[in-house]
């Protein structure tokens, strides 16, 4: 029971927020943006924790998901729920192009993905007949009303995102707890050792990349229909790569709830507290917070709470 306490607390908070702030478009807007980051942070952490791959380029999946969904819903008239799914699939499909990068390790992989993100961004700018180029792409459908719930309203979007984040967290948990998850954990630092006992490392890693891209694309697509405006600089902005990393690390990227809570907290801290204290250059506070966190609690907020599992890595000497 104790182990599920953080999850339960988060769930209660998630339910309480619309009850308390439901009328406040501002707070709900911040929550929605925070949850978008949370979804991407979860996807990033999944790849980082299970796949052992640090990515600097999740913006690629985010942007592709956003554009795919927006274009399909506007130009092909696909209903938005389907276009969201298509966006996620589009992002996953794109990650297939990145499979060669799986051969690379550590920073090389991170940088290769960054290069892909750049390439996709430039393509979105140059293929202006499809994407509208740098002028941007607007006038595509908002989130629909289904069964009486208007998902384009702040509270509606919020509810949708909470459910989606929760679903993704459950998928993540299932993978992590499976034997596949255990094998993946080992693979990051001892690839040969895992392969000689029969683990098909490349395949498992590919699946993780695909899954991570899928989730990121899904959130990119949802964000597009919430903001209702796309342009390459925004959809492929480095922010979509960087913020989730900060959030995940802050919350604890080896945990599942860490990235989620980290994203929301960081986002709210930055927008509500930091902006109040320092109207210009408030990110300096974010930087300080992050640096402090890494030094004081390298395993993140949730890592702090977690009782150290027996056999967890610990510093020798």
């Amino acid at each position, binding site marked *: 029971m104790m182990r599920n306490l953080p999850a339960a607390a988060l769930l209660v908070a998630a339910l309480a927020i619309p009850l308390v702030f439901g009328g406040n478009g501002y707070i709900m807007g911040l929550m929605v943006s925070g949850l978008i980051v949370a979804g991407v942070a979860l996807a990033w952490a999944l790849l980082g924790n299970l796949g052992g791959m640090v990515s600097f380029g999740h913006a690629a999946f985010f942007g592709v998901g956003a554009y795919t969904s927006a274009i399909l819903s506007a130009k092909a008239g696909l209903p938005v729920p389907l276009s969201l799914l298509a966006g996620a699939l589009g992002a996953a499909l794109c990650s297939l192009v990145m499979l060669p990068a799986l051969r690379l390790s550590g920073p090389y992989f991170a940088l290769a993905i960054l290069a892909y993100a750049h390439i996709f961004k430039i393509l979105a700018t140059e293929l202006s007949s499809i994407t509208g180029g740098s002028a941007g792409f607007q006038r595509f459908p908002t989130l629909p009303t289904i069964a009486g719930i208007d998902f384009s309203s702040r509270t509606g979007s919020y509810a949708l995102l909470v459910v989606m984040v929760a679903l993704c967290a459950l998928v993540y948990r299932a993978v992590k707890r499976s034997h596949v998850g255990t094998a993946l954990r080992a693979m990051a630092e001892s690839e040969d050792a895992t392969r000689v006992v029969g683990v098909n490392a490349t395949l498992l890693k590919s699946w993780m990349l695909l899954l991570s891209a899928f989730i990121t694309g899904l959130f990119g697509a949802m964000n597009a229909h919430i903001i209702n405006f796309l342009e390459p600089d925004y959809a492929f902005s480095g922010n979509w790569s960087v913020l989730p990393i900060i959030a995940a690390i802050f919350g604890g990227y080896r945990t599942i709830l860490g990235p989620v809570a980290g994203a929301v907290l960081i986002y709210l801290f930055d927008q509500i507290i930091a902006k109040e204290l320092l109207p210009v250059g408030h990110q300096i506070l974010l930087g300080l917070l992050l640096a402090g966190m890494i030094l004081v609690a390298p395993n993140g907020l949730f890592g702090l709470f977690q009782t150290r599992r027996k056999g967890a890595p*610990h*510093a*020798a*000497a």
Partner: protein
Amino acid sequence: MLEVRGLRAGYGRINVLWDVSLQFPTGELTAIVGPNGAGKTTLFRALMGLVPHQGEILLDGRPIRGRTWDLLEAGVVMVPEGRMVFKDMSVAENLALGAYPQRCRQARARNLERVYALFPRLKERHRQLAGSLSGGEAQMVAMGRGMMSEPRILLIDEPSLGLAPVIVKEVFGIIRRLKAEGVTIGLIEQNTHIALSVADRMHLMRSGKVLLSQDAGSVDLDRLHDLYLARESGQVQA
């Protein structure tokens, strides 16, 4: 002379050494034997300041405050197992690093020649990355690297590990020669017979304690055997 008194050391939650006291008298070869996991390697690592520890370590009667690099300057050198080579550096670079302490940089070229003469295989492979060497070759690098620094006190951890019988004989030949040159040596060795053939004094460790200390000439092999198999316990001095 190197001496430890009441040494305790361990890794995080696990304590390995319990009040170990022993001496490495100048110019002598002190062998340490004992079953696996007894804490022999840990003893050497603690001596070199690689493992946090309590208790006193004295060099020539003066306590040292375990800075590894100060020990190296003072001529105390450890040869670790072959796993501890610099994997992504070449054999030549590994050996060159052996001569890092100020006092032996001058003589680097000469010492390198000496090492290459003892292990011709290393000369052949001087540009190969140490990480791709065979197990035995890596062991030779570790040994050669230790000799690059002209040790005054040399602590060697299982030099015969993974070496072919011919090479083992050569390595012990080298150890004998070093001893003859006046180097104080501490040696961990599983093969009691080989150890006894070069040692002046022998200590048996078990479960983080020194159980038996004897002069090499008067070793009671049966006693040793019993202790290995843990039929007896308690500190024994001979």
